[in-house]
């Protein structure tokens, strides 16, 4: 009997979360747990495990240690085989932890990054197993793959 394959799908609140939800058909066959920033998002993913991390935008760098601590707790509980994220910066914590714990990770830079890759995406290039952009020109400039967009 194969172990169930566990996927952690993570995204910040707002557009990043909406982008992540549009990827759900690709998660078929996986045991998926979700992570974002607002409790009420749980209603969008019924029947799955849902966790939150504190909001840590770039205006509030002190929140990062709190995000990292919660991310470590979630990773210890879930022990995912794979991590998929549509950003943003706080979700880099999961990529770092995924490296240490042997999870394969995919960063999909936001479709909002229409002219250049996000600064968090540039960090993700080094942390994630794979990083892709949603605009062909942006992907080409970064030497990354373009697989298409959430739209």
């Amino acid at each position, binding site marked *: 009997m194969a172990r169930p394959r566990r996927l952690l799908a993570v995204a910040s609140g*707002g557009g990043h979360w909406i982008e992540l939800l*549009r990827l759900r058909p690709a998660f078929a066959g996986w045991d998926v747990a979700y992570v974002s920033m607002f409790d009420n998002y749980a209603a969008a993913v019924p029947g799955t495990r849902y966790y939150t991390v504190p909001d840590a935008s770039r205006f509030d760098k002190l929140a990062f240690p709190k995000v990292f601590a919660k991310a470590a707790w979630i990773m210890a509980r879930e022990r995912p085989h*794979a991590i998929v994220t549509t950003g943003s910066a706080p979700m880099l914590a999961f990529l770092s932890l995924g490296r240490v714990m042997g999870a394969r990770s995919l960063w999909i830079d936001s479709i*909002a*990054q229409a002219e*250049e890759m996000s600064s968090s995406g540039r960090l993700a290039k080094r942390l994630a197993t794979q990083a892709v952009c949603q605009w062909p020109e942006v992907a080409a400039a970064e030497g990354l793959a373009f697989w*298409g967009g959430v*739209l």
Partner: protein
Amino acid sequence: MIFASVGSMLPFDRLVRAVDDWAAANPARPVFVQIGDGAYEPRHAPFARVMPQAEYRQRLRDCTLFVAHVGMGSILQALEDGKQMLMLPRLHALGEHTTDHQLHTAARFRDRPGLLIVDDVGQLQANMTRLLDTPLAAGHAISAEASPSLLAGVARFLDTAAPRRRPDGQ
């Protein structure tokens, strides 16, 4: 009914104030505003800080004009619901976002049917009135799924992360 939203992550008082001023000048036309963490509270329109997602979505479905920042969450959900959109980009220079990526998004989506992106609050207010009276020819509602090629790419990646075992245990 106009539903105006600055999204859920950062304040955007310039848009909230413009919508509130318009509401003051157009008392017969109902407006509801999601203002996020903004300091400015509307005095001429009912508002919420950040609504639960289900309530937000219902407001979006019930409106005849969606006014928003140029956020991808706003664009994607309004496209899924086939709503006409009037949008004002956040500017980095005014401290409205961490970068000017909303201008880049605006450039990419400016010509899409059902969506009008304006450059300042004067144009925003003028077009609130215009689009209520003469709605844009909205594009048809899109599906709630990413493009087939991106879905295939993600599925392929996941297969490499933990290949499905064969039924015979090989």
